């Protein structure tokens, strides 16, 4: 395949979901089966093409980047700015090729899963249309070769996420969650936009390649390293919003109000990984300081969300916080310099977390049908306390879930182990080279917590006895369209696809394909270069391996004792630490802080504005209105009495004289003659006097 073919393929991959979206929105309802086959078919086609690009790119063009761009809008020479044009473009490097496959594969399987899961939904065709626009936007980000394109895609995924979270907008909580996701994301996007503007103001181009080239030649924004760091951190703000990092992580757990396949596609596997992808894409421009900020943000996120996850009872909430925590891992990986590990974790996480969400979807589907069958509308089908013992009824879902859990908990032979181990080794190396030991210590603790809460989820859902034996009889395995994606994701969560050595992900093809790009920032503010860092990281390989196995084992063991053997009672522990339990159950009170601080503050501010508007502005407007009214009244009076009065007076006078004169017009000739005679006599006397 030549470069041209690859570009053509990527254009087809990019545009076909958009065409699908347009068709679905306008004629979807009239198509047979409401057109689900159309979108699903398009996505499978896109997946096949992506796979073709992937294999070609990695085998034939391993070390080159394939680029294509065109001027989308040319504004010519603009005052102040100079020449201004908007260029859209596609750049395909190894990272893009891998992301293409991940996005199209997860999207295609989620489409397949949705056919059964969303069966009979009131807005069935619109749901698939939105999935189409989401896939298009996500591919737009993945294929972007400049900041402009990536920003456009960025906002488009935000929009489609909003549309899909609020799919069941009749529920108030779903509408609120969608608004929250949208608004919180905008906060991060402001930062990203400012960062892009700093770069654009200085370089007058949006292209990644051109900006990095100029930076490499020593040309940095405003000639100052502080500006460079600021630009890096601001662009990272976009990732903080989209990838749900602390302090903007609050939207993601609420976003679980959307349909579960949407959670799997957007809020677990692809869109939330866009932030990680953005950091990976702009990696060369981050200074050591910016990277440290990134690493700490990731660490805080991973820690907070993992601790929250252990106290949640809603199956999707646990998975949501686990997603936030894992995204924190990826961000830490990038921040400490283990670039490959962070993006590797993105890929493996996409597979097993999409699987976990679809698996939970399968469980919820079964619970929902059972409760629905019994006309029970009070039992929450997502609450794990209502589950238990599902293992025997849903064997396929159960075994798939076991594999995903093993992968996320960091059990050897599964994909998650490879990538997580690399990140942990990276943090140890970072601790060694910079002295920031807090990061590795926290992350090892979080790795243990991950194993703990994932096994807790497994035990509460699939083991033990079901709380309601009557309902239990009605629980059935989900249909094939749902279990096949589960099985595919389960097989993709094995180590073999990523590395032939089950204990070292660094030797796999993916680690070789996605290598950390050379930094372009001035050497004085540059992080430890790749080779030096990699050597230290390699040195820590076995330490990290041993430690991570130990903490994962420990977490699982405690979970086993607590939730399977029941030798440790979770209730007793919670009762002994009531404050901590409440604190974790309330998600560190972060939502309350935002509600009471920011939201209430904004509300007060709007009250002040409303008062100002209602009293001052309206007062002025009403005052002007009344003044005009008074003046108009006066005018009216003047018109009515003076002007009309004059006119009427004239008419009245004329009328009066008319009435008088009318008397003389008798119609009798003799009277007239008498007048004439009288007149002549008068005239006679007048002339006589002269």
């Amino acid at each position, binding site marked *: 395949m030549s470069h041209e073919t690859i570009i053509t393929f990527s254009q087809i991959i990019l545009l076909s979901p958009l065409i699908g979206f347009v068709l679905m929105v306008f004629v979807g309802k009239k198509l047979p089966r409401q057109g689900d086959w159309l979108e699903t078919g398009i996505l499978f086609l896109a997946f096949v093409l992506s796979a073709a690009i992937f294999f070609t790119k990695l085998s034939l063009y391993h070390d080159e980047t394939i680029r294509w761009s065109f001027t989308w809008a040319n504004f010519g020479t603009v005052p102040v700015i100079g020449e201004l044009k908007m260029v859209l473009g596609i750049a395909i490097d190894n990272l893009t090729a891998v992301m293409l496959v991940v996005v199209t594969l997860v999207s295609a399987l989620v489409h397949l899963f949705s056919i059964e899961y969303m069966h009979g939904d009131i807005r069935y065709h619109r749901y698939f249309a939105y999935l189409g626009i989401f896939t298009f936007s996500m591919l737009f980000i993945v294929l972007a070769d400049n900041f402009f394109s990536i920003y456009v895609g960025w906002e488009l995924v935000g929009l489609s996420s909003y549309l899909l979270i609020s799919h069941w907008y009749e529920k108030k909580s779903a509408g609120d969650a969608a608004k929250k996701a949208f608004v919180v994301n905008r906060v991060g996007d402001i930062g990203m936009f400012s960062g892009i503007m700093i770069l654009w103001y200085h370089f007058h181009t949006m292209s990644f390649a051109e900006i990095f080239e100029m930076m490499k030649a020593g040309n940095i924004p405003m000639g100052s390293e502080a500006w460079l760091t600021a630009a890096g951190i601001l662009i990272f703000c976009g990732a903080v919003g989209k990838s749900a990092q602390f302090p903007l992580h609050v939207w993601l757990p609420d976003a679980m109000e959307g349909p579960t396949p949407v959670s799997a596609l957007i809020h677990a596997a692809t869109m939330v990984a866009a932030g990680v992808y953005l950091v990976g894409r702009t990696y060369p421009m981050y200074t050591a300081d910016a990277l440290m900020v990134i690493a700490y943000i990731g660490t805080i996120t991973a820690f907070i969300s993992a601790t929250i996850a252990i106290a949640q009872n809603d199956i999707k909430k646990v998975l949501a916080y686990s997603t936030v925590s894992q995204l924190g891992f990826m961000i830490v990986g990038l921040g400490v310099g283990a670039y490959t590990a962070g993006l590797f974790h993105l890929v493996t996480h996409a597979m097993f977390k999409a699987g976990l969400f679809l698996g939970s979807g399968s469980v919820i589907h079964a619970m929902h049908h059972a409760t629905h069958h019994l006309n029970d509308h009070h039992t929450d089908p997502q609450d794990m306390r209502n589950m238990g013992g599902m293992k025997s009824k849903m064997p396929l879902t159960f075994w798939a879930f076991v594999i995903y859990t093993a992968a996320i908990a960091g059990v050897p032979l599964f994909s998650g182990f490879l990538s997580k181990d690399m990140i942990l080794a990276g943090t140890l190396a970072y601790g060694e080279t910079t002295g920031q030991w807090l990061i590795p210590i926290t992350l090892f603790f979080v790795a243990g917590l991950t194993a703990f809460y994932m096994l807790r989820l497994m035990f509460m859902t699939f083991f033990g006895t079901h709380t309601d034996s009557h309902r239990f009889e009605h629980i059935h395995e989900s249909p094939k369209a749902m279990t096949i994606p589960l099985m595919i994701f389960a097989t993709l969560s094995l180590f073999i696809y990523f590395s032939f050595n089950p204990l070292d992900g660094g030797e796999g093809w993916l680690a070789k394909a996605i290598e950390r790009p050379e930094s372009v920032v001035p050497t004085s503010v540059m992080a430890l270069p790749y080779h030096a860092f990699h050597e230290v990281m390699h040195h820590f390989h076995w330490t990290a391996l041993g430690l991570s196995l130990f903490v994962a084992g420990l977490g699982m063991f405690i979970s086993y004792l607590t939730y399977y053997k029941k030798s440790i009672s979770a209730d007793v522990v919670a009762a002994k630490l009531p404050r901590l339990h409440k604190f974790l159950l309330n998600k560190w009170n972060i939502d309350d802080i935002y509600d009471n601080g920011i939201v209430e503050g904004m509300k007060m501010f709007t009250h002040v504005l409303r008062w100002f508007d209602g009293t001052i502005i309206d007062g002025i407007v009403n005052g002007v209105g009344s003044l005009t009214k008074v003046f108009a009244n006066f005018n009216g009076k003047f018109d009515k009495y003076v002007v009309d009065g004059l006119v009427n007076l004239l008419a009245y006078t004329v009328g009066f004289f008319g009435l008088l004169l009318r008397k003389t*017009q*008798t*119609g*009798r*000739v*003799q009277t007239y*003659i*008498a007048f004439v*005679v009288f007149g002549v006599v008068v005239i006679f006397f007048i002339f006589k006097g002269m």
Partner: protein
Amino acid sequence: MLTSVSLTHYLIVSGILFSLGIFGVVTRRNAILVLMGIELILNSANINFIAFSRYRGMNLDGQAVAIFVIILAAAEAAVALAIVLNIYQRFNTVNVDDISKMKE
């Protein structure tokens, strides 16, 4: 007492005649009598013509005009009587007070 008949006497007669004519025209209700009043007025004018012609040393112009007036009066009487006949046919009366259509 009447040593000679002067112009003044003629004018007095003419004035009396004119006044009677006007009186007739104004007060009579019958259209025929109104016409008769008009004849009197015309004749008072004739007397004036002739009197002035005689006493102001003029030739017979006054008499000639008086003859024209008599002819015209005859013609006028003919026309006026025809009108009165028409009025009678239309309104079934010759009372001028009842014929006040001009007012409308």
